[in-house]
């Protein structure tokens, strides 16, 4: 509404508002701990946590990068396989009927119970962590892709077919674009889930990563360290989620233009 606002691109406004919101929350946090006299064992001051990170920045930075890499690999694999699965199930209902229940069952298993099996099968590599991130992400994407494709009005499909569009054209021109909003809902969820997968994966005997830092802090009852790791995870998660949301807005916007 102000003159300045008109010159700023909307994404910058969102960003500024975002940072302002966080800064406000940070001040509230610091003030609450100080004024309410909250025991540091329950909630330490934000400044204490930040200085803990500043004391060994290398450890947090390398942990951050490592977890980021695992998250990205797991997310990419889960997203691609999820969309492909969705398309496959849409095209071949028989296959969907056959495999879908198994997929559902697979999602009811808490991976953490099988730490040893994961190490046994995938070793101590980054792959093992990415596999867990993948395991958590592919299913929501599969489901939403399928739902999105199924929600396309069959009359539109019929119309396109009457113009002689091939199955592939129908898929790429009509069905997938129409399903995109649904797919992106799942991708946003997957962004969070792949981070969960990466962190839990690091609980199976690793040396670097935010999950390792979390575990170490938790069992040493190092509450400041715990919060420091949580903060890093929050930055990673928010950043990644924001990127996916940004991509969603861009791509869906383009879709609407067409």
């Amino acid at each position, binding site marked *: 509404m102000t003159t300045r606002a008109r010159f700023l691109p909307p994404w910058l406004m969102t960003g500024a508002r975002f940072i302002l919101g966080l800064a406000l929350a940070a001040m509230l946090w610091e003030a609450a701990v100080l004024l309410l006299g909250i025991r540091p064992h329950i909630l330490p001051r934000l400044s204490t946590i930040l200085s803990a990170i500043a004391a060994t920045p290398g450890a947090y930075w390398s942990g951050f990068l490592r977890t980021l890499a695992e998250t990205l690999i797991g997310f990419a694999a889960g997203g691609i396989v999820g969309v492909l699965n969705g398309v496959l199930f849409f095209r071949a209902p028989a296959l969907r009927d056959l495999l879908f229940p198994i997929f559902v069952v697979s999602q009811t298993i808490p991976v953490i119970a099988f730490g040893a099996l994961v190490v046994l099968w995938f070793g101590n590599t980054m792959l093992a962590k990415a596999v867990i991130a993948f395991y958590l992400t592919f299913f929501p994407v599969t489901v939403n892709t399928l739902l999105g494709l199924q929600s396309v009005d069959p009359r539109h499909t019929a119309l396109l077919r009457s113009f002689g569009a091939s199955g592939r054209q129908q898929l790429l021109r009509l069905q997938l674009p129409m399903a995109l909003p649904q797919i992106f809902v799942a991708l946003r*969820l997957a962004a969070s889930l792949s981070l*969960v997968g990466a962190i839990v994966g690091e609980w199976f005997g690793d040396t670097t990563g935010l999950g390792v830092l979390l575990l170490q802090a938790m069992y040493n009852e190092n*509450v400041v360290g715990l919060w420091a790791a949580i903060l890093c995870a929050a930055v990673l998660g928010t950043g990644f989620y924001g990127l996916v949301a940004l991509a969603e807005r861009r791509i869906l916007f383009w879709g609407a233009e067409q």
Partner: protein
Amino acid sequence: MNRGALRGALGVALLLILWEGLARGLALPSYTLPSVSEILLSAWTTRQALLTAAWFTLAEALAGYAIGCVVGIGIALLLSLLPPVRRGVMPVMMAINSVPVAAWSPLLLLWLGVGMASKIAAVALAVGFTVFLSALAGLDRVDRRAADLMRSFGAGPLSILWRLRLPTALPLIAAGMRVSTVRSLIVAIVTEMLGAYGGLGWIIYQAVVQIDFVAVWSAILVASALSLAFFGLVGVIERRVIFWRSS
């Protein structure tokens, strides 16, 4: 419909046969992969302990689920009515949500103790955010022209919410609730593994320490069955409700 269920059963049966064959054919030791029959037998002989634990976990998951759904939908409705508040609160919400529940669990244990409260809180957190995000996405999905039309007829924001936005959002809210069923049990189990007085996660933790891998698998089997039943139940309710709303 019936044919689909038949195929599904076929798929599961094929997998089980493959599993049993693999475990027996390669004579895999139980610490690598126990056979299905071994797991079923163990689950049957320890059914008493497993059922007690299952109730324990289910109680935590259900309580957390209910709290999470109510709070999640409630906050989504509230924020969709108050756009300025929403813009301010969203960054903090996103930051909290982006921290995996697995990271909150240790803190919740420190805050709320090893009892049921910490598990209920963890489940409520996980379910709450999933439902909240899908509800918000659903509420945003409303056709702007329809809202404008209603507004031009003098409808207030509350009436638009109730008559237009909520019905439009319902399928997404329901989807979020359905996905959350499975998560609720997993989060309860994972938190139990970190510290508990009982439950399936506690049984799994104990079994791993005692090198009883068949017991791990049979606890997972029960957890899985429980999740599926919960998932199915919410699915059935969803179909009824949405059917009723759209007719």
